[in-house]
């Protein structure tokens, strides 16, 4: 397995010493994110997120299947992550590296286990027919902080996604094409966002948000906190690494909440802008057969 070349000793020392003086190589503040950009595709459910030089594409798709036998009332929801060799020569196809396993576990815990998507609403006929929602995450370019970017992309893709409208009449299930009925959004309950802190130094006393790949390579530990804008923690993962004072972890969580709220309002704004762009002539409201049920996400 090819290994990523480690930064040289000089580079490491340079980055660390600068961080000691609260200076980052790209001139950001310690608690500042790189510019976050989001573009939606022409189709529903495609989100392309760039965070500095990190770029992640997420695509949501739906298909009709049979629900799992042990959960007849639930739909199926999966997140598939792929780190291809396009990103870095250290990644190989069909052989998940540790990074990939950790990212997919984190996304799973953040989005799926926290109940962001109401899987019961995906069930059409109990035990027989349900929607299977799948999100494919492709990392196109890796310059650190993949987790935050990937999580944002997944949430954006799912909130942008529309599944075909269906109806049940007399035991007959009809799935409408987009031409017949405007597709409907998923039943979305809350939007969690990941915020990753990286710790530097022997005592882990320097905490930095949104580390670049270079910074990640010299960091001595990291902690990913997932929150939604209501102040609910969905997941915390500090998987080993340098020991950090419990009090500073609490501070990190509070700052993370501010960042998560910030990301949440950004996403809301981009989603409304996109909705306006698609809604040419204001016809969508008339075409939609759906009742407004969830006013505030």
């Amino acid at each position: 397995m090819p290994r990523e070349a480690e930064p040289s000793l000089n580079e490491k020392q340079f980055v660390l010493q600068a961080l000691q003086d609260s200076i980052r190589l790209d001139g950001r503040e310690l608690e500042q994110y790189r510019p976050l950009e989001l573009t939606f595709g022409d189709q529903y459910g495609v989100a392309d997120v760039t965070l500095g030089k990190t770029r992640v594409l997420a695509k949501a798709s739906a298909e009709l299947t049979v629900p799992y036998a042990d959960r007849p009332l639930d739909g199926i929801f999966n997140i598939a992550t792929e780190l291809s060799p396009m990103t870095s020569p250290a990644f190989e196809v069909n052989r998940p590296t540790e990074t990939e396993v950790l990212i997919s576990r984190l996304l799973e815990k953040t989005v799926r286990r926290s109940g962001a998507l109401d899987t019961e609403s995906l069930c059409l006929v109990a035990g027989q027919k349900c929607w299977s929602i799948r999100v494919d995450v492709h990392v196109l370019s890796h310059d650190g902080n993949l987790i935050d970017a990937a999580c944002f992309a997944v949430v954006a893709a799912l909130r942008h996604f529309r599944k075909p409208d269906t109806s049940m009449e007399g035991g007959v299930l009809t799935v409408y094409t987009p031409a017949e009925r405007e597709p409907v959004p998923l039943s979305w309950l809350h939007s969690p966002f990941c915020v990753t802190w990286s710790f530097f130094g022997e005592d882990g006393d320097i905490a930095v948000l949104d580390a670049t790949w270079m910074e990640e390579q010299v960091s001595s530990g990291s902690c990913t906190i997932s929150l939604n804008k209501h102040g609910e923690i969905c997941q915390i993962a500090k998987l080993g690494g340098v020991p950090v004072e419990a009090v500073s972890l609490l501070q990190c969580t509070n700052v993370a909440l501010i960042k998560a709220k910030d990301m949440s309002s950004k996403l809301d704004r981009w989603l409304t802008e996109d909705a306006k762009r698609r809604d040419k002539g204001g016809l969508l409201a008339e075409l939609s057969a759906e009742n407004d049920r969830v006013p505030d996400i």
Partner: protein
Amino acid sequence: MPLDTSTYGLALLRVDGRRWNELRRIHAQIRTQAAADGSSYLEMGHTKVMCVVTGPSEPGPRRGAAGGAAGGGGGAGGQSKDAEVVVNIVIAGFSSVDRKRRGRGDKRTLEMQSTLANTLAATLHTHLFPHSQINISLHVLSQDGSLLAALINAATLACVDAGIPMTDYVTACTAGSTSTYAANDEGADPLLDLNHQEEQELPGLTVATLGDSDRVVALVCESRVQISRLEGMLAVGVDGCKQVREILDQVIKAQGQKMILEGTVDKGTGLNDMDLD
């Protein structure tokens, strides 16, 4: 199936009769496997794990082919100047009620392996053993909540038994909070050391600290919880870790005394003040 812990508010007793700040019974042994470099057996309530440490030794031929992900490698690679910590967790099929088969590629296990490897790599003095490998294999015999915490404690004990220099004990325990995330009541009590039933129903986290300090090595929270609850849970968890540390320390000292009395090891000079009765 959800279980009703709402009775907690009436008697302030939990499903197994403990109070909020009580640990379950911890029983630990070290030097259980004669052939291994270091070994331990740990019970936290009904969670039972066994740990065997091999090394530091020369890395095997397996390296490179399946390192990293498969073994949950922590620290740096075997070619560097630090020893590599490789953790392998085997969860026995009979360890839980539903007898679920977990393959080698199970992501939850891989994540735990990686957490353990990184936790220990930060504490063990791996720089003393360049180009070598420390193998830690853990066997889960019975699961009743706080699995990750039990694994970390067992691994710490086994590393001490193997005589690998380390900064201090890494001890772990879980903490939870009564009432679910939805109820926004401020009167929710933090709970120490969750069992399986509580883990299923209540929000909780696993915290691992270094020695007697408040410094957190690992913090894993997998459930939805209000941010205001975190402080209480973390405080109780860190306090629990200190209690666990005392217990583990006693286990090690007891074993040390036994070995001196048996004459397995010489009595060191620094041990004159130690009571050997």
